[in-house]
């Protein structure tokens, strides 16, 4: 209901696209045998993971299991020690840096909300907006009516219309979370990596977020990391449990919830 108005056709119009994403064989994201270590500590340990096109995947796991690190690997922030990471069949993400990966259509919301404090809410969204992001076109860029409308739609979605002209620096924690989600929407990504979207949100806002994410699936492949089980339950189809840097188990919510190992390391009770 929300996304239909804000998210336009994506994919075909990517100007910076390094090539069509080939997902004919199913998965759009491939991670195989990925290892990351920090000063000897293995944050990701022979991790393999496949995400299908259009899928909404929930990712849970204890604190420090490596979920954020996984996103760091996919978005190019952290280079793994070994393993392979492919976007579609053809794009080797390990060869690309962060902006190049973003340009292929992989976007991310950070665990700690990170918005641009000095820019207004509006400008934050505008910056994120899908567009030609090279220097000269950016310099000569003019916003057209359609783009304007899109920004306003997203502002509505994230309920920040009234604050649109304020610097983002004055937003409260929860408002920043919303703004980041808005920025994600503006980017029209193929793959969305959403790290703990609902931290600091009220119960009702959580519901709205769930609705939003559900409406986006199908068009976008989404990975959501969250510790709020109620929320996860409300959106989950397939859930992956990460533990000590590798996949502990994968399955439907019910399967996972009843897995004794998951209960032991994560859910408790």
């Amino acid at each position, binding site marked *: 209901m929300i996304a239909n108005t804000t998210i336009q056709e994506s994919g075909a119009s990517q100007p910076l696209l390094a090539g069509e994403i080939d997902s004919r064989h199913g998965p759009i994201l491939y991670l195989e045998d990925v290892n990351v270590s920090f000063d000897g500590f293995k944050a990701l340990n022979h991790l393999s993971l496949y995400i299908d096109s259009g899928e909404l995947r929930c990712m849970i796991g204890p604190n420090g299991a490596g979920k954020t690190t996984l996103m760091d690997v996919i978005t190019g922030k952290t280079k793994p020690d070994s393993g392979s990471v492919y976007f579609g069949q053809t794009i080797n993400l390990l060869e690309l840096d962060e902006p190049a990966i*973003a340009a292929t259509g992989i976007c991310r919301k950070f665990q700690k909300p990170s918005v641009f*404090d*000095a820019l*207004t809410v509006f*400008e934050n969204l505008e910056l994120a907006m899908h567009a030609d992001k090279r220097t000269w076109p*950016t310099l000569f860029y003019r916003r057209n009516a359609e783009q304007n409308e899109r920004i306003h739609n997203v502002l509505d979605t994230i309920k920040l219309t009234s604050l649109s002209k304020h610097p983002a620096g*004055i937003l409260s924690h929860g408002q920043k979370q919303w703004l980041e989600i808005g920025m994600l929407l503006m980017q029209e990504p193929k793959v969305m990596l959403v790290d703990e979207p609902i931290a600091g949100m009220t119960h009702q806002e959580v519901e709205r977020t769930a609705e939003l994410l559900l409406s986006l699936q199908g068009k976008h492949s989404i990975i959501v990391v969250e510790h709020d089980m109620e929320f996860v339950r409300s959106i989950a189809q397939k859930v992956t449990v990460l533990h000590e840097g590798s996949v502990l188990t994968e399955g439907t919510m019910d399967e996972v919830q009843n897995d004794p190992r998951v209960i032991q390391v994560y859910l408790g009770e």
Partner: protein
Amino acid sequence: MSQYKQAIDKPYTLTVGVLLAVTMLIPLGNLLTDSDSALHFSAYIVSLIGKYLSFALLALSLDLVWGYAGILVLGQGAFFALGGYAMGMYLMRQIGSRGVYGNPLLPDFMVFLNWQELPWYWLGFEHFPYTLLMVFLAPGFLALVFGWLAFRSRVTGVYLSIITQALTYALLLAFFRNEMGFGGNNGLTDFKELLGFNLQSEAVRALLLLITGLSLLGALLISRWIVNSKLGRVVTAIRDQESRVRFLGYRVELFKLWIFVFSAMLAGLAGALYVPQVGIINPSEFSPLNSLEIVIWVAIGGRGTLYGPIIGAILVNYAKTVLTGLLPEIWLFSLGAVFVLVTLLLPDGVLGLVRNKLWSSTQPLPVSGVPKP
């Protein structure tokens, strides 16, 4: 567009207005009236203002990289000096055989150090268009190479600041060397003509001032257009959260490079305008302390505002002119005290004060109104 931009529009307009008035009035006054007219300004005033305006342009250039892109360049003077040297070389070549040794090709300092031929890098500087090109290209190229290396390797913060300082320091030492062929410590002096016009004539001085003023205005307009463009916002975003911008798909290093090179070229232009008006260019322009002073002008005026640095540069240099004449023995006390007081009392620079008093905007300001991350 947004409210706070309107808030800065007023002083901006005022700055533009005053600059325009000054740059038109003084030169036109001098060109059109007799020397005893009230509208006729002495060569002293004209070249003084010319110098201030060149410095203002230099400060503006630094504000672009520092105020907006957050790159604290401690070597901006290097680009200024390079532009200045390019212009100086042209002016030297213009002396021709009127030098003290009458050598038609070689500048005097080369003659008495027994240089036999003009070094290759001096070739072409007899042509003004080529010189004009080099005024932009020499600093631009240096900025391009240096910036490309540094930004690509993600050198940021103080590390970047200090290596820009190292850069200008290295250039200082290099230009001091007489073997470099730039006149060593004495630099380039004794200029006579620009485009065939006598540099000492009143009209040429007035015209130089006019050109400087118009360049400054032009640069201010372009800079404002840039910072209000989306590129300007990307650059501001980079200042606050560089890594986040990458994940939005922008090539941070290219944006930084763009603004860095543009700013270096502006600085080069400032240098080129400065040299014919003060009559000398010497390696001390490369000294790290000079570059530091530019930072001070920007900070005093208010960084991240474009017009603030212009006013800062003019104020500080005017203060210097006055104080070195009025309190020659103790003026450093007063200047030092001014720096301390401005920092303590006027966190947004002099312009912050003016802005708050005159336009008492309740809107937070783009740079310092928000707690820094």
